[in-house]
């Protein structure tokens, strides 16, 4: 378990590096999901270790009291995993694959820690669309909770999280400015909501299948 603020995060080590080693691959799940129990088949060929993180309120991670989720909080979760997988060494890096909501967080991590994310692959999954792109008339309410994952507040709050396209593309620009890769972001999703469509049209973004993107980032 990792500690992020007052939350215990479950970081699942799915597999050690193959002989010869390589940088860690971090898998970020979608909204309402949890980490896979075993290495997904699409990651079989990855040379390095494979790990997966349960976001706050998901899987085996802490379920907070009274909600308060934001994508930026989950970015902090992913950054805690990055710190653990690199043993706190800012010279080391990881590759990230994010599904759905995890894709949005992978993009943010690639921008926020550009020098330490050697490629972020954005793929389809629950929570990919997110919420609106501007001010809304959404209301506010309490939810019944049972203390089990996934937390209903996570489902509601992260499902309507604001995602303006120019906010998303900011992270592409940050990634490009701080990465040693020419294309630090790979869009492998079929569905491209507004924010992701904007991301996919940015300079420095690769359009590739998941397998192609992983092959490109594995060296």
């Amino acid at each position, binding site marked *: 378990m990792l500690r*992020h603020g007052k939350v215990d995060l479950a970081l699942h080590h799915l597999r050690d590096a193959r002989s010869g080693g390589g940088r860690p691959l971090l898998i970020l799940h979608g909204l309402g999901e949890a980490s896979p129990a075993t290495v997904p088949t699409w990651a079989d060929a990855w040379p390095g270790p494979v790990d997966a993180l349960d976001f706050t309120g998901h899987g085996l991670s802490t379920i907070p009291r009274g*909600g308060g989720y934001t994508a930026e909080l989950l970015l902090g979760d992913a950054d805690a995993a990055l710190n653990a997988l690199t043993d706190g060494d800012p010279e080391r890096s990881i590759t990230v694959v994010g599904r759905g909501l995890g894709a949005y967080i992978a993009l943010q991590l690639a921008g926020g820690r550009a020098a330490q994310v050697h490629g972020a692959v954005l793929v389809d999954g629950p929570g990919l669309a997110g919420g609106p792109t501007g001010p809304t008339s959404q209301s506010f309410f309490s939810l019944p909770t049972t203390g089990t994952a996934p937390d209903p507040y996570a489902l509601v709050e992260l499902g309507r999280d604001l995602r303006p396209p120019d906010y998303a593309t900011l992270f592409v620009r940050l990634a490009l400015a*701080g990465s040693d890769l020419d294309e630090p972001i790979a869009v492998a999703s079929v569905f491209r909501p507004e924010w992701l469509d904007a991301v996919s049209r940015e300079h420095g973004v690769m359009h590739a299948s998941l397998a192609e993107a992983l092959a490109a980032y594995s060296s």
Partner: protein
Amino acid sequence: MTGTRAPVVTERHFGDPASEIHYPGAVHPLREYHLNENGLDIAVHEWGAPDSPPLLLVHGGFDFARTYDVFAPRLAAGGWRVVSWDQRGHGDSEHPELYSWDADMRDALSVFDHVSPGRPLPVIGHSKGGALMTQLADAQPFRFTHLVNMDGIPYNRRIPDVAEHERTKMVSAEIAGWLDHRRNTATAQRKPGTIEELAKRRGRMNPRLDPLWLQRLVTTGGYESDDGWRWKIDPSMRFGGFGPWRPEWTLMRLPGLPMPFLGILGREMEEMGWGTPPEKVLPYMPHDGRCELLDGVGHFVHIEEPELVSEMVLDFIGDPGASPIGAGS
């Protein structure tokens, strides 16, 4: 909208009035309790007679309900039951795992439903509290008879004359700084000091406020431990941060507000303020709204000018006997 379970109300006495530094006109709340509806204890403070019609006071970010110790009694003297609460992580409320605008709003609804179930009431918000209540008034107008927003109308201050690549660097540093802070929040503690030292630190952000008032704030918003005084606010919180929200979006909610609206803006710009130029706000006034501009007053209009602002507010919200939940009803 709330009320998935009955809230638990636990009477409390936060702090020791005898240890609070005396300040002219300041009054310790008459009633204090924890309200717990969503698994979190929210500290509520009340002034005035319990059977008077209620109004709500909502504090700003990095503040707490006791910053109304002078302002609230003046409103109570006008015949109101004045209720304020510490937002999660602030004052005497619990420090939860997460913070967000939505979560603050949910906590607020617990207080609304507890204080005035099913009936509208006047609401007065300062700074972030004003911005929160402006959005709530737009989303749930049936809860408000009047809305007063005290220097809580955010405005986007885009830094001029900075090249795009420099702006990218600034954002990058801001995000990295925030992530570095998040990595340390599990063990973070507020810096201890004497009452005078904490007051001086706060005074750097509030240079217009009376040093004696700032010292009183330490004794109402801080606690004393073996190595000195610390602010009660959750050490995991900090100024700044980033996200998709844009300050100017609050402005867009103003024109459609259906309840009487009073904006009170101080013309003197301060670090804790929003830096909102009045001329940017005036075109957004709702049909039944107006904005008062106070010359020579900073962000904390109700602390700098409690007499003027409380009279302005009492005049605006009218006779408590005419309230939908007037005394005796």
